[in-house]
């Protein structure tokens, strides 16, 4: 394929040989929270690489939709860890974003947007772990190139003025809805596990198991994009739907992709524990555990111990 017209993608250009080095194997698919949620291959990491190649080669005209492919990403780097060919996908996305922003594309994709209720308190500006919030012409804005969609600003904003519009199943409402559905449809259900995508995330979810294999499940796992971002409403919701307990998995404190996620999640859980205590409910019905990146064995062991603990306690009266 010939390069059709001179590139306007000056930042992306340096990745030309890497884009060719991607063998398009698709090993990155099933690890991507976007693909897991929409099930569309065109949302998967490989498609983002193909889009970047198309834009750079001139085969694909820049458009809102094409730009969105590159603005939609949580920077979890699961794709990079799974890549058969050592492609550093998110670095490529970042450079593509720089070019797209210069061309006037404004996302937002998965980046944070500020609405009119912003009180300009600057809390988010200090809290953003990636220096992506700043005071600009239109008040508090997000740097589309730097934002890694961690959601810290969303959960910290006292005016509820920050949002991530495209949550791909990992937002507050998504988690609440999904956990309620599980608790509602499984008589055997006891616990909800909120797993941080960085600590341990269940892979291989692209296929659906037969009813016979799942009907007596006692817990279900929901992946979020940073344990520090789990809000009290999300953590309390399962209790209102008759869960026996809630387990939160976060990263070890010194290993948080978003700086203080682990610490913040512990604070949140502590807060819920004191609410439970006030309600005369065993506070240990909500717990937080640190799981290092990808430690599946520890993750499963912690879940098993937690379920044993709940079995000893029984349901909440």
């Amino acid at each position, binding site marked *: 394929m010939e*390069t059709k017209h001179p590139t306007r993608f000056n930042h992306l250009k340096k990745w030309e040989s890497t884009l060719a080095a991607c*063998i398009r194997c698709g090993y990155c*698919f099933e690890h991507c929270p976007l693909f897991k949620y929409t*099930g569309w291959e065109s949302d998967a990491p490989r498609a983002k690489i*193909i889009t970047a190649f198309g834009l750079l080669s001139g085969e694909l005209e820049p458009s809102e939709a094409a730009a969105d492919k590159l603005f939609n990403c949580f920077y979890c780097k699961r794709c990079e860890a799974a890549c058969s060919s050592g492609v550093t996908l998110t670095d490529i996305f970042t450079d593509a974003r720089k070019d797209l922003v210069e061309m006037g594309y404004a996302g937002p994709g998965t980046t944070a947007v500020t609405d009119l209720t912003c009180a300009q308190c600057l809390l988010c500006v200090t809290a953003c772990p990636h220096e992506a919030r700043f005071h600009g012409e239109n008040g508090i804005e997000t740097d589309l190139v730097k934002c890694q969609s961690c959601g810290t600003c969303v959960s910290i904003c006292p005016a509820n003025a920050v949002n991530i519009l495209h949550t791909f199943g990992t937002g507050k409402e998504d988690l609440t809805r999904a956990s309620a559905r599980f608790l509602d449809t499984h008589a055997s259900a006891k616990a909800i596990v909120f797993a941080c995508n960085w600590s341990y995330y269940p892979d291989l979810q692209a296929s659906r198991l037969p009813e016979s294999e799942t009907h007596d499940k006692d817990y279900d796992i929901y992946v979020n994009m940073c344990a520090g971002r789990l809000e009290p409403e999300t953590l309390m919701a399962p209790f209102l739907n008759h869960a026996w307990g809630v387990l939160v998995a976060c990263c070890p404190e010194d290993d948080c992709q978003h700086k203080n996620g682990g610490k913040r999640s512990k604070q949140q859980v502590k807060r819920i524990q004191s609410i439970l205590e006030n309600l005369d409910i065993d506070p240990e019905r909500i717990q937080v555990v640190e799981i290092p990146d990808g430690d599946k064995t520890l993750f499963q062991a912690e879940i098993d111990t937690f379920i044993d603990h709940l079995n000893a306690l029984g349901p909440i009266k």
Partner: protein
Amino acid sequence: MKTIDESKLREIFGEENIKTDPSDLYAFGSDASVHHAMPWAVVRPDNTRQVQQLMVYANDALIPVIPRGGGSGMCGQTVPIRGGIVLDMKHMNRILEINLPDVYCRVEPGVVDDDLNLALKPHGMFYPPTPASSRIATIGGEIANNASGVRSVKYGATRDAVLGMKVVLPNGDLVTLGAHTRVEASGYQLHKLMVGSEGTLGIVVEATLNFVPIPEYRCMGIANFDHLAHAGAAVGSIMASGAIPSMLELVDSVAIKAVNKTMNLGLKEVAASLIFEADGMVKEAVDYEINKMKEICKKHQGSDITTSYDPRERARIFMGRKKLFPALSKYDDNLSSTSLADDMAVPYSRMADMAGKIHEVAKKNNIIMTAYGHCGSGCMHTKILMDTKQPEQWASARKAITEIYEFVRSVNGTTSAEHGIGLSKAASFKVEKADSLRLLQTIKQALDPNNILNPGKLMQAPDDWVTATGLRYAVNN
């Protein structure tokens, strides 16, 4: 380009299961091959009824339909060379039944191979054809490509594991082929015809698959050889000895060098290494098999022979093979690892000659090629490392591939062991099957008279793969 009645697609699939934006279509225009072509629309069925409805519409409107699983095919099988509608089967991904007493499972075609194995594991079972791409390959794609993998030397390819299936024909009819039993004597075994048909005869909407118990013991070994010919002879002797390897892999000197260069694994740089494995329920039986293989390697001047049951040690032994893809991709910043001449099969006795031929052809044509593969099944793989920007390199690749497949055919080998034909291997396939091409076309015509299901592939593909479609690489003018 024909116009597609989008309202018809919306009526069948619902708005949320259709893609027509160029940015989506562009992504669905490629797979793991060198090819690229734009489809006109992508649809995502959730059930058989929708697949039938689509085929009735497409057959009537004469619009090509290209079934697609994970899109990991290496030869352009899913690249819509004549445009049309991509039928993305990934959403029909239910494991319908795991029937232990009858030792079969029923699955929809979009189930990912690794997911199926994850579901079988708690029952102590596994689905053995498993290609290296099992984390993305779907059962539908594996059936259509007759996929196989490292363990196929003992457990067989997809064709051996498929008991039966439900298939939607190009006119929308639904047929049940094969059976749920281990044996079925008579009739045309049409389910086996679907295996390897590369989505050109029918759309698999359900498959009944055999599974086997996970062995209690696995033991893996490695042997180094100073001459390719010795490694090749060892393969033939092992297979003729009555030993039953559960894996028998070859990696050549180029592969070893690539892994050392990019991964710093410090492997001994010999002409070839053989990795072998035996598995079973009884340790003594596994010992017997592994010792037999060890002896044979020794007899053929294999050196540095080690074996181990320990999972960590086995992982270490396999590391060189496992890291081969990333090693080739990272070999040199200016070279891309392309899926070309990716796969072939030759008789055991010609394995070493085949690897030697690959080296000779690569050198002559100024490209880098490595020989590796599931040699226990007679399967050989290679990749072409080349500067994809340079038109001359494509010309060299074209020449190299022609020479390689001429050799394959001259030693009674076959064009594809497991990756399929699609577009990039069609030229050799057509020569190899010259006297049955009419028959193949007659079968295609009988099932798909309007030629709408994945047209332009296999025997219908253009002879020159370089110009058959756009390439997925940017090539200088």
